[in-house]
């Protein structure tokens, strides 16, 4: 059985301008949403605060829960339902970390049991101090930045044999970022600036493949973060794990296509570059669609069956996988093409 006929020939490269516009629009919407909501919605992991997950046997009124919370001094917390409808679980979230030693969770449980008239069961409590939250935010950004740089070294080395050059570039960037980070600069801005500088440096040193790949990755991450922001979901530690996975997966995809391009360039170097690239994409189409489908199928299982925390995680992965597949075809390859064109 075969979905994709072997002689398929869709003109992907021809449609790259439309794709570019679509991508740009989605990215602008994403960034717009982030700015409108003043940043991503941080979970307790990153913002500090307290989170309590409560389960009832039957649906409880949120206002009853809030009355109960008022009794123990948590009246200002946000309450929302969590997970699927039938589990009757709620998340209580407040910004102040409660340093509790006075049987706090028992007090909360009793207060809620009496205010809602049902037995309340505390499933999970998370309390994170503000300093820890900020430390984690910074660590997350650094982690993603380092991952991107290491990946750059690998790609530049494998595809253009520029191991040493890319190694030096990466080392210098890491060093610069580290030194600047000691100076109390706002970390997110530092990392964003570093990324821009990195791309510029790639351009100067002609690390074409790396640049194509990295732009595709940034594209995917921004879209995923943006859609998360649009749908008002929280950013927690597992979501960062999802982002790093998406980076790995999208790269997977991009490399498969690049590999084919490189192979075809060697074999058919008389053909025009865009024909070559198109051909490569078409040849790998079968594999790309298949892998995306199987991975998506599995992640959708997680999404539906995994329970509250895994649900958001799977959601991020679904967006990321789709974006990753799209970006390998419509972002990374066109950049490669534009590069070659500008050189000749």
């Amino acid at each position, binding site marked *: 059985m*075969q*979905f994709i006929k*072997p002689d398929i020939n869709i003109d992907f490269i021809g449609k790259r301008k439309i794709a570019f516009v679509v991508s740009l629009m989605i990215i602008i919407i994403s960034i717009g949403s982030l700015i409108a909501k003043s940043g991503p919605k941080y979970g307790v992991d990153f913002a500090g605060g307290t989170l309590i*997950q409560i*389960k009832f046997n039957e649906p409880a009124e949120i206002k009853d829960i809030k009355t109960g919370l008022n009794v123990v001094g948590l009246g200002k917390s946000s309450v929302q339902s969590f997970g699927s409808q039938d589990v009757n679980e709620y998340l209580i979230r407040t910004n102040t970390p409660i*340093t*509790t*030693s*006075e*049987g*706090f*969770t028992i007090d909360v449980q009793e207060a809620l049991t009496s205010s809602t008239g049902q037995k309340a*069961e505390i*499933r*999970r*409590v*998370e*309390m*994170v*101090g503000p*300093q*820890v939250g900020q430390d984690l935010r910074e660590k*997350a950004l650094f*982690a993603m930045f380092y*991952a991107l740089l*290491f*990946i750059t070294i*690998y790609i530049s080395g*494998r595809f253009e044999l520029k191991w040493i050059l890319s190694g030096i570039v990466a080392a210098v960037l890491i060093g610069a970022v580290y030194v600047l980070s000691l100076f109390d600069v706002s970390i997110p801005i530092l990392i964003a600036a570093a990324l821009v500088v990195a791309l510029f440096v790639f351009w100067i040193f002609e690390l074409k493949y790396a640049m194509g790949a990295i732009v595709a990755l940034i594209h995917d991450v921004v879209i995923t973060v943006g859609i998360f922001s649009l749908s008002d979901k929280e950013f927690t*530690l*597992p979501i*960062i*794990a999802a982002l*790093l*996975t998406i980076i*790995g*997966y999208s*790269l*997977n*995809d991009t*490399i*498969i296509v690049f*590999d084919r391009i490189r192979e075809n360039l060697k074999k058919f170097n008389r053909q025009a570059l865009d024909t070559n690239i198109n051909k490569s994409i078409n040849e790998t189409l*079968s*594999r790309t669609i*298949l*892998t995306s489908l*199987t*991975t998506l*199928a*599995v992640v959708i*299982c*997680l999404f539906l*069956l*995994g*329970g509250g*925390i*895994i649900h958001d*995680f799977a959601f991020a*992965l679904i967006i990321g996988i789709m974006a990753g597949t799209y970006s390998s075809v419509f972002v990374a390859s066109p950049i490669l093409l534009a590069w070659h064109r500008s050189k000749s």
Partner: protein
Amino acid sequence: MIYIFPTIDMQLNNKEQPDMWPGKKINLGLDLQGGMHLVLEVETRKAVQAHMERVSDELKSMLRKERIRHKGINLVGGKQVSVTIQETDVDRLNDLLNNEFKGLRSDYSVDDTMANFLIDLPEREAAYLEKMAVEQALETIRNRIDQFGVSEPDIRLQGEKRILIQLPGISDTKRAKDLIGKTALLEFRLVDENHDVNAALNGDVPPESEILYQEIKNEETNRKSKIPFLIRKRASLTGASLTDARVTIDQQYNRPRVSLSFDKKGARQFERVTGENVNKRLAIVLDNVVYSAPNIESKISGGNAVITGSFTTQQAHDLAIVLRAGALPAPVVVLEERTVGPSLGLDSIRKGLASMVIGGILVIVFMVIYYKGAGLIADFALIMNIILIAGGLAAFQATLTLPGIAGIILTIGMAVDANVLIFERIREEMTIGKTPRAAVYAGYNRATLTILDANVTTLIAALVLFQFGTGPVKGFAVTLSLGVISSLFTALVLSRLIFDYFLIIRKIKTVSI
């Protein structure tokens, strides 16, 4: 014959499956078992401060002994001791400092006829003190948790002054936190009988004393009240002199008490203090809270004392644990606390496994439909993959968390990728016209590099995540890394073996793909 080696390797990994081999099993993370995760920070600055306070006390008594008059000894900025003396006494003080206070650094300035000394700890000494404080805190907390009786607790240092504690299966989190976080500084201090506690409450506090409170719970009304005491700042005896602390029951009132035993030096000191202060009160102070302040009836020798108070047997038991394990050298602050109830843990396991099974079945069925015979080979490789990951987790004693299960499930989806790459190549080669055997050979050849490239990049992301993540996320990085490595093995080596078996040994002529 190179093929036999990996097979043996695989068998070894196979044997370390969960439940099968007693030696190693898979650790479950807190989010799957239920339990408590705490991150504490040791306030090392206070350790330095406490040290300087002791220095200041000793200096005071030394100056009195040597009859060096001073205009004041004060603690400045929590780190330095400032002493003001006559200029004529400068040499004597310098000698004293050199002889008795060797580790300290001192400097002085002269103003008129007075000299002002500033004494502090050099940086290296202070850093050493802080490091020792953290290590001692770690040991003390470990001792306490040992006595508390938690199975397989995980206590370790995180960074320079943070302590990470994981207690699986804990349900009484309040008790655990109290036990761990209590500074437990036990002091025997005399009540200041020479001054009036009420005058002190109005603001007139004599310099050598301070106001501390005793908390009393009225048995009938259950209401708590605080009684102020004027207590001398200087401790006559501390918990450092304890050799044992036990719970005993008061025969008369049937109430629990904690009986203390002192070491020889402590016993002698106790005897002296009680002998010199008959008919005065000696307050038993724990973490600056007065537990009781009984009257000294007569000199007490024998080195035993009793702490009474309105606590339950369990509280007395916990108090004894904490006194036995010793005081924390500096207070600790809870930075992060995550607790997962056991019911959530079980639910998570159930859901995770359900997703894995259903996802797995979907993929397996699809592979057979799309690639027929070759699909079966890929499915077999997939199952081996999962077994290898499980074996790897057990072998490395890694922890399986809920995101870790998600990582395994993700690997299922991505492992298929490698096989798809190879099979698509094989189909391509066969379309060009190669024989099945040559097509398989060429397919594997061409695809190997691509598969390596793609998987190495995922591995890089997973390794970065491993470095930076904590707890559940680290579990995800572990299973993802294991998954990538094992899927490389099963796709490139294992499935190739099977193809070769059929094509070379069984000499099958066509490939069902």
